[in-house]
């Protein structure tokens, strides 16, 4: 028996850990986790290519009608190189940086250096969550460097003292070379602050199915929502209610 789960690459690593734990308990069931992105996850669930679609943003119009299960919340961290003296920005400043109304760190109290803005590609769930949460009245500048994964953004910021990027909060401390998560409006980007609601750059991690789940699909989802499943997600740095 096989459950196919496909979609958001932000949710994927967590789904893999859950699937592994689940398959340890039920060796006769195979849970197959695939990437592809949030949009692909929605499409896969709609067309039935996957039993469960993963998404890291709210559903869009094309995806209405899907059955939604929120499995966790994830913080979005604004990251800079550890050598950058800046520790705190306001949401307004982040928005100004990404629309390039501010293009030098000195106007924010940092070094006199051009800001290297790094964004994700169009269609990415992380990008659309960032746009929804931060870029209220403006757009991400087309001059922004575009990388196609959380890992690539993190790597670039770790290498470049003048770079700024956004990645999943759970991935900030994963990796050989450090990056620094900025405080927003004075609130540190920590797991605890996401839980208590003071850090509000968060997005939902959701499972979507074509119709109300049944059979082993329902069983797997119930496992994810169980105390055991929530304990795993919590231990991996996500936020569960």
């Amino acid at each position, binding site marked *: 028996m096989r459950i196919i789960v496909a979609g958001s690459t932000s949710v994927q690593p967590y789904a893999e850990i859950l699937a592994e734990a689940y398959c340890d308990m039920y060796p006769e069931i195979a849970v197959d986790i695939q990437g592809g992105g949030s*949009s692909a996850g929605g499409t896969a669930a709609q067309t039935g290519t996957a039993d469960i679609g993963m998404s890291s943003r709210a559903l869009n119009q094309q995806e209405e009608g899907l059955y939604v299960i929120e499995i966790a919340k994830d913080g979005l961290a604004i990251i800079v190189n550890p050598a950058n003296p800046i520790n705190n920005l306001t949401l307004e400043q982040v928005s100004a940086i990404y629309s390039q109304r501010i293009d030098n760190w000195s106007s924010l109290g940092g070094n006199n250096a051009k800001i290297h803005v790094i964004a994700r590609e*169009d269609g990415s769930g992380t990008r659309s969550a960032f746009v929804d949460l931060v870029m209220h009245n403006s757009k991400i500048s087309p001059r922004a*460097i575009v990388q196609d994964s959380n890992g690539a953004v993190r790597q670039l910021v770790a290498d470049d003292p003048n770079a700024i990027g956004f990645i999943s909060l759970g991935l900030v401390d994963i990796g050989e070379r450090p990056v620094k998560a900025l405080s927003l409006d004075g609130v540190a980007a920590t797991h605890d602050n996401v839980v208590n609601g003071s850090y509000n750059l968060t997005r939902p991690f959701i499972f979507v199915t074509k119709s109300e789940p049944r059979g082993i699909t329902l069983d797997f989802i119930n496992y994810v929502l169980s105390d055991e499943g929530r304990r795993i997600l919590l231990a991996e740095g996500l936020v569960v209610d």
Partner: protein
Amino acid sequence: MSKLREKTPGFIFMALALSSISALALITVFIIVNGAPIIAKVGFIDFVFGMTWAPSEGEFGIFPMILGSVLVTLGAAIIGVPVGICCSIFLAEFAPVPLRGIFRPAIQLLAGIPSVVYGFWGLLFIVPLIRDRLGGPGLSILAGAIILAIMILPTIISISEVSLIALPRHYKEGSLALGLTHWQTIRSVMMPAAKSGIVAAVILGIGRAIGETMAVIMVLGNAVAVPESILDPVRTLTTNIGIEMGYASGEHQQALFATGIVLFVIIMILNLLAQYITTRRPR
């Protein structure tokens, strides 16, 4: 019976040959069927010359990427073509035989390195070098041009060298007999005679550069804007498809196929040009 035995292999080979052609037809039709609707909807001019690419907001202009492809390829040609041609002259005319035995396989090896390895090396070596020495984010036209220049060297060197070696012996002998020096012979007899082969080598090298994806995706920075300097990031047509295909659906996906159509046409023109130049009868 024996007649049949004679003919059967011919049919089998024809069927296999047809299958490779039909793969080309299949891919071409698939790209066009998937990409043409969005070009029709946006309008050819707005698609090719549009300055804004924001598929999630319904903006499909690929001009910055066409410009990106042209600039990066031009940069690669400026760096790679002189080096490649000089190297082929060296191999054909100057290199002592033992050295030739080392150089040729080495250049073949250069062609055998997977493009992702070039990209990874560029990201870890060229990009930081540019960032630290020249400024900017490092991910830039320059980084892409350097990587591509290395990648097109084997194409340029081997085809130019072959066209120099393939010249009739009496060209060189006659020229030397008339009292021209070795260098004068190369410059005024051999180079002009091998011109069509060398030009074809350059065009095929350029075709290779325009089509390359994996290596440049890692070092170009992929920003969809008209660059102001060679230290700015750009996106090419190929990297646009490579970087966005994972998440694309609906019109966004069609627009990526349409990007493929444009790329396909450019590469086809380059190949036809190379073919025309090589098959043209020498005067």
